């Protein structure tokens, strides 16, 4: 059964709650109203001809531009070897959606992950807790506007990047080199030592390790 026939059956059963099959490049999908999602899924699973018994994946996509979090259902039928992509749009500020845990038990963990990483609240979910992030984590990482926490309970997860530090020292040295070469002046003035990072870099200019410390 091709996707068009499945969509036709859906359209005929649910009327305008089910949008048309999309024409975009790559895989085509069907947009469904958020109140109807559980009925549509139950219909897909139980009607004899469709038998979408295998819920491959439930995931979400954050569209800040359209102020929408889109929940995507990849469902598949092992018997008839046909699949469908169903999308539901929920409001971005207070995303709530009915859970399809009743239809497929696989949804339990998939929805918990969406709740954890996107903040979509699934009503009726048996055990809606954060799954990947620690329980007291703030924010939902996979949202586009998520600021990286940079650490957890005071344990930082960033290390000063040696390359950035290095390039500062070499920039200064290169400026000194260019200044020394182009300016015809007799003695190039020693580089002004800025406060802040300069103190460390002035002494710690790592030339080739074999050089004695003195030669800068």
């Amino acid at each position: 059964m091709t996707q068009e026939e499945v969509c036709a059956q859906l359209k005929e059963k649910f009327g305008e709650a089910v949008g048309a099959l999309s024409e975009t490049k790559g895989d085509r999908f069907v947009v469904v109203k958020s109140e109807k999602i559980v009925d549509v899924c139950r219909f897909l699973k139980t009607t004899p001809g469709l038998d979408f018994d295998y819920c491959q994946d439930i995931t979400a996509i954050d569209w800040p531009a359209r102020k929408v979090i889109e929940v995507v259902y990849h469902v598949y039928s092992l018997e008839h070897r046909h699949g469908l992509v169903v999308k539901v749009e929920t409001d971005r500020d207070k995303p709530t959606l009915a859970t399809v845990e009743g239809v497929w038990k696989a949804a339990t963990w998939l929805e918990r992950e969406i709740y954890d990483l996107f903040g979509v609240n699934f009503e009726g979910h048996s055990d809606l807790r954060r799954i990947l992030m620690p329980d007291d984590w703030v924010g939902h990482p996979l949202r586009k506007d998520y600021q990286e926490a940079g650490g957890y309970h005071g344990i930082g997860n960033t290390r000063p990047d040696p390359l950035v530090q290095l390039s500062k020292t070499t920039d200064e040295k290169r400026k000194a080199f260019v200044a020394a070469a182009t300016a015809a002046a007799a003695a190039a003035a020693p580089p002004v030592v800025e406060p802040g990072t300069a103190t460390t870099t002035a002494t710690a200019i790592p030339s080739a390790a074999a050089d004695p410390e003195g030669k800068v």
Partner: protein
Amino acid sequence: MAEAIREYFGHITDVVKTFYQGLTVTLSYMLRRPMTVQYPDRLEKRMADMLPSRYRGLLEVDMAVCTGCMACERACPIAVIKIATDKDPTNPKQRVITQFDIDESKCMFCGLCVEPCPTGAIQHTHEFESTMKSVDSLVFRWVADPEQPAPFYRPVKGQDAPRAPLGEILRKKMAETSWIAPPSILGPGGPKQD
């Protein structure tokens, strides 16, 4: 009842049969050669020479043939390579590379930088023993001193770039730096030096 008895003794015969087979297999291994390669000291030749040619070990850059195209810096997904180029003040046509640093402690040896390199300047050597006194020594500076920058190499059509044999520059550099801890680049907050 008969079924239970047959099953009861069936278990016993199963145990005897399967243990018999299992024991023959393990005893037979007493006569076979263990596969252990006794690295590091009981090998015929250096481990680095026994590795296959495509092995992706520590990165090495031969500045003589580097064209300064910065393709490797763009290809690296975790920005481990840092290149700075400049106009050579002495003759305006020639550009020079004043800084070519690779933070080998962060490099994940994925090989994406080696592919776009036109002259094969940057290559994975077969060296993998990179124990250093401090993690900062793993930041390899291929342009030793910004004051003697490396000029861009102009590849000659139809001729391979004359690259130094693989691993030579790296071994020399590692021999010098591995056991001498450089002053910490990361400033006072960096790892303590003994």
